[in-house]
């Protein structure tokens, strides 16, 4: 017996799981605005607004859960999954400073400009 995996392969080659968060590009048609995607409750604030291509189609950057990705696809939306945002977040958090490199103010940042 072949078991169906709970994880489904997305068209972009990324796998999506319902409870995880993904970074996406979602197509918005020539006569549409992001408002047409309002009911999907995409998180697209403070993300860049790509200009439309020659066919008037725009691709909206957004974050959404795997279940929302599934709902978008079911509604006929083209979705490209760019990354697993949860996994990406864990990797990126390694770039946060640990402890207090300034020792309560006994040291301070040196700045980045060159004195001239």
């Amino acid at each position, binding site marked *: 017996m072949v078991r169906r995996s709970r994880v489904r392969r997305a068209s972009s080659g990324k796998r999506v799981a319902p409870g995880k968060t993904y970074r996406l590009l979602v197509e918005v048609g020539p006569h549409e605005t992001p408002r047409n995607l309002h009911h999907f409750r995409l998180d697209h604030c*403070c993300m860049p607004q790509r200009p439309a291509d020659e066919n008037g189609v725009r691709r909206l*950057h957004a*974050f959404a859960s795997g279940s929302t990705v599934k709902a978008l696809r079911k509604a006929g939306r083209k979705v490209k999954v760019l990354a697993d945002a*949860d996994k*990406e977040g864990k990797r990126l958090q390694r770039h946060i400073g640990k402890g207090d490199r300034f020792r309560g*103010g006994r040291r301070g*940042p040196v700045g980045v*400009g060159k004195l*001239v």
Partner: protein
Amino acid sequence: MALILNTTEIASALINFEATYPELCRRLQLPKKTYEGRVCHALQIAKGHAQHKPVVLLIAGVHAREWGGPDIVVNFAGDLLRAYSKGKGLQYLKKTFLARDIRTIVEESTLVVFPCVNPDGVEFSHTKRYLWRKNRNPAHSKGDAKKIGVDINRNYDFMWDFKKFFHPAAWTDSLASDNPAIETFHGPEPFSEPETQNVRWLMDRFNPVLFLDLHSYDGDVLFSWGSDENQITDPSQNFINPAHNGKRGRIGDTYREYLSMRDYETATGIATAVSDAMRDVRNRPYKPLQAVGLYPTCGTSDDYAFSRHLVHPGSTKTFSFTLEFNFEGDTKDPFLVTSSPKTLDKTMRDVIPGLIAFCLTRPT
């Protein structure tokens, strides 16, 4: 190369500046503690008496996941203080500021920087859920972790009650939301949050002539208005006029928000000067943009700051901006300025010249 500053380090940096440059710096304790009990500080930088000098107010660390904003502001203050104390200018690749530029800022204005408005949210983004945007106030969550927090940059008193002011067709999640599960939840009332109360306190106390809120990302220097397209011909079409309630926020229709020609020229002039300075560093395509060009918004810091002189005639006019640093494709992840620590250094070198240019402008 630098790792991103954590919230403890941001606080320690300000302590260090005050201790190292006592004649130039003063830490200001903000009146409201955050929900998690953090005490916030801003830093005032001025040579001699701060009174009667034009005030420039810079804030960052508002949206928790937009990492790098506090680092930019802290290092901007560090560069300025170090250069002034040594009588030097500053160079960022191809962009150079002379020693007299630095003197102009420190001696002829009062600079107030508030590098981390939302430390609870920033800490949560750094250590738990990276995509966190709001503060950590659980008052409206009813025990649901996904409903914690208020979007600080929808909680200011500028057309906060969006269902009253905006056309129903403009009611999108990016405008604002009254649903706590949404990233732009605007809170139960304007200025309900300690973070926005702290920023308002700074505005009330200092009456800045210039205000800038640092966010990421789209490579823009945004100027008012963010609620609708601008127009310069009909002063009666304005956010105060109740005759236009329920009509605002639709792009391409007949309602547009009034801005005088003079204010429009001043705002675009400043936004252009800032973006030009950032382009000069290594030709990154920063550009001035009316804030509504991103999408219509309400309850934001920049429109609130600029609207104050219209709501309270006779008060200081604050030319206000939001700088969205970094670009699509800069890193593998949009909000991260450091997929490698080298990227953060580059971002700081790009943006700090914009902040210096901003402080050198004087609204007319």
